[in-house]
């Protein structure tokens, strides 16, 4: 993306590349990630209120819009208590890892064809690698807190995250197999028109749901939130964290939830493509706003579905969770992988929609 901007306005090359890179990273973090996480918290609480037949926050500002700002300020002003017997260096280090991995996964989200911070040629692979770092941060925070609850909670959370990473990695790999590339922008462009990933073959349809469910479990959300369940383990791995450190865990949970919705949109729902919308017919200056709008609409729709699931379904027990992962999702993912590979070989890589189009 930055290289395209440099071609357009060569005057910007007076500053070295890393200056603009840092500015764009900071802009993404402060202008998108933090406000988005805040607004997502507000929307979640309002939706939760609706589903539970009550009004959500409505005191701070009109309709409670400023609630998340009040919450952020409160957490900033709270005292930062580090337990005396806690492992101090690791205690401080754990939020850093979690924040780093949560923020760095935003680098490869294709908001638009040209609006992607780092158009790596191994985009999907990088995402899987970076989101695996969260489990490390969780274990470190559980261990460093010097608290039995935190240790057990951290280990359980890590076991959950790590088990559900197998279906996630398998579905992403199968999607890359079906769509023919690891580059995020190429993945979206392979779904131009109606050839969305989810309609490629029946196995991809199953795989979309496998991915969505496994990814929900990976960010410890919805029915799989054992690590944060108040009635189960007091607060799991973030019991001893207070104030801003706790806010970081909280923020990264919502940022990760958005990353999952964005990746689902990219791979299964066609990214910024709509059926019967040909980007060649649209003037170039309208491309970016239109693509960003379509992409964000799809991603936010999936996010709202995530919130809907969270406040509707009861929580899974730990052994039911592990059983679901290893005895249901992993076999399904493997079957879909082999099925998709077989379909690709039989039909020369053409999806269902492409075959239908070839019939007419």
């Amino acid at each position, binding site marked *: 993306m930055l290289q395209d901007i440099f071609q357009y306005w060569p005057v910007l090359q007076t500053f070295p590349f*890393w200056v603009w890179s840092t500015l764009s990273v900071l802009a993404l973090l402060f202008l998108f990630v933090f406000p988005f996480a805040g607004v997502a918290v507000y929307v979640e609480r309002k939706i939760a209120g609706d589903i539970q037949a009550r009004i959500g926050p409505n005191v701070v500002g009109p309709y409670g819009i400023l609630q998340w700002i009040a919450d952020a300020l409160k957490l900033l002003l709270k005292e930062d208590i580090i337990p005396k017997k806690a492992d101090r260096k690791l205690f401080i280090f754990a939020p850093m890892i979690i*924040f780093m991995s949560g923020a760095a996964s935003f680098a490869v989200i294709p908001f638009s064809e040209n609006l992607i911070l780092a158009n790596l040629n191994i985009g999907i692979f990088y995402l899987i690698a970076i989101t695996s770092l969260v489990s490390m941060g969780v274990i470190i925070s559980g261990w460093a807190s010097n608290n*039995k609850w935190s240790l057990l909670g951290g280990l359980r959370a890590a076991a959950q995250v790590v088990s559900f990473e197998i279906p996630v990695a398998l579905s992403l790999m199968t999607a890359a197999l079906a769509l023919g*590339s690891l580059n995020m922008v190429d993945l979206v462009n392979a779904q131009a028109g109606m050839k969305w990933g989810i309609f490629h073959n029946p196995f991809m349809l199953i795989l979309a749901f496998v991915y969505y469910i496994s990814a929900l479990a990976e960010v410890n959300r919805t029915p799989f939130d054992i690590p944060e369940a108040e009635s189960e383990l007091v607060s799991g791995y973030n019991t001893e964290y207070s104030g801003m450190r706790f806010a970081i865990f909280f923020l990264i949970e919502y940022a990760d939830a958005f990353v999952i919705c964005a990746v689902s949109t990219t791979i299964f729902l066609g990214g910024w493509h709509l059926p019967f919308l040909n980007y060649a017919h649209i003037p170039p200056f309208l491309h970016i706003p239109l693509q960003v709008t379509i992409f964000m609409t799809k991603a936010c729709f999936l996010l709202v579905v995530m919130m809907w699931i969270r406040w509707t379904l009861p929580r899974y027990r730990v052994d039911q969770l592990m*059983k679901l992962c*290893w005895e249901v999702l992993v076999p399904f993912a493997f079957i879909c992988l082999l099925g998709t590979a077989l379909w690709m070989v039989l039909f020369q890589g053409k999806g269902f929609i492409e075959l239908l189009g070839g019939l007419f």
Partner: protein
Amino acid sequence: MFLEYTTIFIFLIVGIAMVPLMLLIGKILRPHAPDDKKTSTYECGEIPLGSSWIQFNLRFYVIAFLFLIFDVEVAFMFPVASIFKQWTQAGFGQGWLAFIEVAIFVGILLVGFAYAWHKGDLNWVRPKKKE
């Protein structure tokens, strides 16, 4: 193309630096009054008993091990996945070759998975031995 990794590297550095930054802003604003009771370990209001670095269930090790095996398998299959579509479209023989390779690789690991399932290693609670 490699210039993009500069952005990734900067992302990682900014990510690590952002946390102390946020806490630094707070340090000026928040109170700092460490108390004996505040900094003791939380154990639902009781006085904490014993060291907290307890021995944990061996089940976690088994899960980590299974994860390791399957993750390495996925990592090895990624290069095949990125080439697969091209190969299916190239010539009829090449697509089948790639598919058979993937099938054999996945098949060997599925045999191991089936063995682990049958032995009961995938259960969270170890099943009681039949007398």
